[in-house]
C-alpha cells in the first residue's frame, strides 16, 4: 500500500506502523461519572466497518508523525490522509465552538 503523507507525499506503507481506529484520539474524561464505562467503550469497542475506515498510522520510519488515514477496508483505497494532531485540534476547536454557543 502507499500512503500519501500530507507533508512528504506518497510513501510505502512499510514505513508506517498501524494502530487502529482513529477514535482512539478521542480519549474520555477521567473524571466523568461513568469514566469506567467510557474508557471500556473507548479502548475495546470498534465499529470495524466494511468500507470507509478512519484509522491511525504512525510514520515510524519517516517523520514520526501520527496520521489519520481514511481507507476503505474492502478496497484498500485511501481517500484522505491528515496529521492526527491537526485532526485532534480541529475536533477540539469544533467542540469548544459548540460549547460557546
Amino acid at each position, binding site marked *: 500500500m502507499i500512503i500519501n503523507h500530507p507533508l512528504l507525499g506518497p510513501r510505502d*506503507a512499510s514505513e508506517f506502523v498501524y494502530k487502529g481506529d482513529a477514535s482512539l484520539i478521542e480519549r474520555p474524561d477521567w473524571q466523568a461519572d461513568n469514566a469506567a464505562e467510557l474508557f471500556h467503550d473507548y*479502548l475495546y*469497542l470498534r465499529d470495524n466497518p466494511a468500507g470507509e475506515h478512519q484509522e491511525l498510522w504512525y510514520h515510524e520510519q519517516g517523520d514520526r508523525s501520527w496520521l489519520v488515514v481514511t481507507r476503505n477496508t474492502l478496497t484498500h483505497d485511501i481517500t484522505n490522509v491528515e496529521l492526527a494532531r491537526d485532526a485532534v485540534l480541529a475536533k477540539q476547536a469544533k467542540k469548544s465552538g459548540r460549547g460557546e454557543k
Partner: protein
Amino acid sequence: MKHRGLKYSGFKVIKEALTGHKGWKPVWRTPKPKKEYDVVIVGGGGHGLATAYYLAKEFGLTNVAVLEKGWIGSGNVGRNTTIVRSNYLLPGNEPFYEFSMKLWENLEQDFNYNAMVSQRGILNLFHNDAGRDAYARRGNAMMLAGADAVLLDQDGVREMYPCLDFENARFPIKGGLLQPRGGTVRHDAVAWGYARGADSRGVDIIQNCEVTGMVIENGVCSGVETSQGTIKAKKVAVCVAGSSSRVMSMAGMRLPIESHVLQAFVSEGLKPILPGVVTFGAGHFYVSQSDKGGLVFGGDIDGYNSYAQRGNLPVVEDVCEGGMALMPMIGRARLLRMWGGVMDMSMDGSPFIDKTHIDGLYFNGGWCYGGFKATPASGWCYAHLLAKDEPHPVATEYRLDRFQRGAMIDEKGMGAQPNLH
C-alpha cells in the same frame, strides 16, 4: 437421531468403483428454508456446521437451519493452514483447546468422513532463556490441564528437523516446545464432514442465503431477514467469524473485534521433507507439509483492518524471510499460491461464545487466526450454550463482558491492540 445418510467405507468405495460411481448421493441436500426453526445458525463455516452437527447429535435439536451467504466452508475453514494444537497457556483457554484436541482425535469415526486428522506434532522453537522459561511455563500449564507437552533442547530439535539452520542463524535455535498430539487436518473436509453429519440428522443447510437483518422487538430476537425471505427462530446463533462486526451491527451491537487479513501460502508439490508443524518464534513463520506435498506456511497478519481477503507484499516477503532464516533448504521451492482470509481479531486474542443482551441472540466469534483448531470444541460448546442456555464448563471465560470486568484472556500480553495478538 438416527444417521439416515449413506455410510462411507472402503467397501462402499470399491462397490461404487465397480458400478460406475452411480450410487453416490449429494453430501448434503439443497432444501428450501422452512418458515421457522428452533435454532437458526448464521454462517456455514466450520464452526457453524459443527454447531449444527453437535446440536443434532449431542443435544437432540434437529429443527435447525444453517444459513450460508455463499457456499459452505467458504470462510476461514476453507482458507487456513490446517493446524490443530492445544498448546495454550492460560486457564481460560487451555482446557477448551484440549477438549477440542480430544474431539479431533475421534472426529472421523464420529462423523464418518476422513478429514485426515494427522497428529504429526507441532514444535514451537525458542531462541533464548526467556523463551525457554516462557515455554516451560506453558508446557507445564498444558500438562496440568491434561494435554501433552515435551520440552526439547537443541539436540532434540536437530534430531527431528536436521534441515533447520543451526549453525549460522541470526537467532540460534536453543530448543522447542513440542506437542506431539498437535498436527494438521484436511480443512475443507472438516466443513464437508460436519455438513454431511448435520444434514443426515435433519439439519437444513441453506447456501446462497444471506442474512440481511435481525428481527428484534422489545429486546427479543425472533428470527432473521434473509435474501430468501424472513426465517423465524427461537434462537439465532451468529457464527460468522471474519464478518462478526458486520452481522452483529444488524442487532445494533458494537464488538471488541477488528477484522484483519491473514495471508497463507502454499508451495508447489514436493516429496515429503517436513514431518510435522514447525513455528519459528524469532521470525514470523510457521510451516507444515500437506499430504499432497505442498509446503503450507504463513506468518503474521498484515496488520491493518481489512475485509479484502488479500494481503500485500511486505508480509509475503517477511514470511519468506522467516522461512529462509529457519530452513534455507526451501530457497528453491516455489511459492505456488498466496491468499488471504479475514480474521476476527479480538481485543485480547481470545474468542467469545456467549449470549448477548438481546434474548434469543447468541454470539460466537473473535477467534483471531486460531479458529480452525477450535472448530469441534467451538461447535460443541456453542451447541451446549444454545441447548442449555449455560456455558459449557470449558468455555466459561469466553464472555463478552470480560473487558468490563478486567478478565482479559491475553495469551500474548499485547493488550487491546488486535493486530499484535
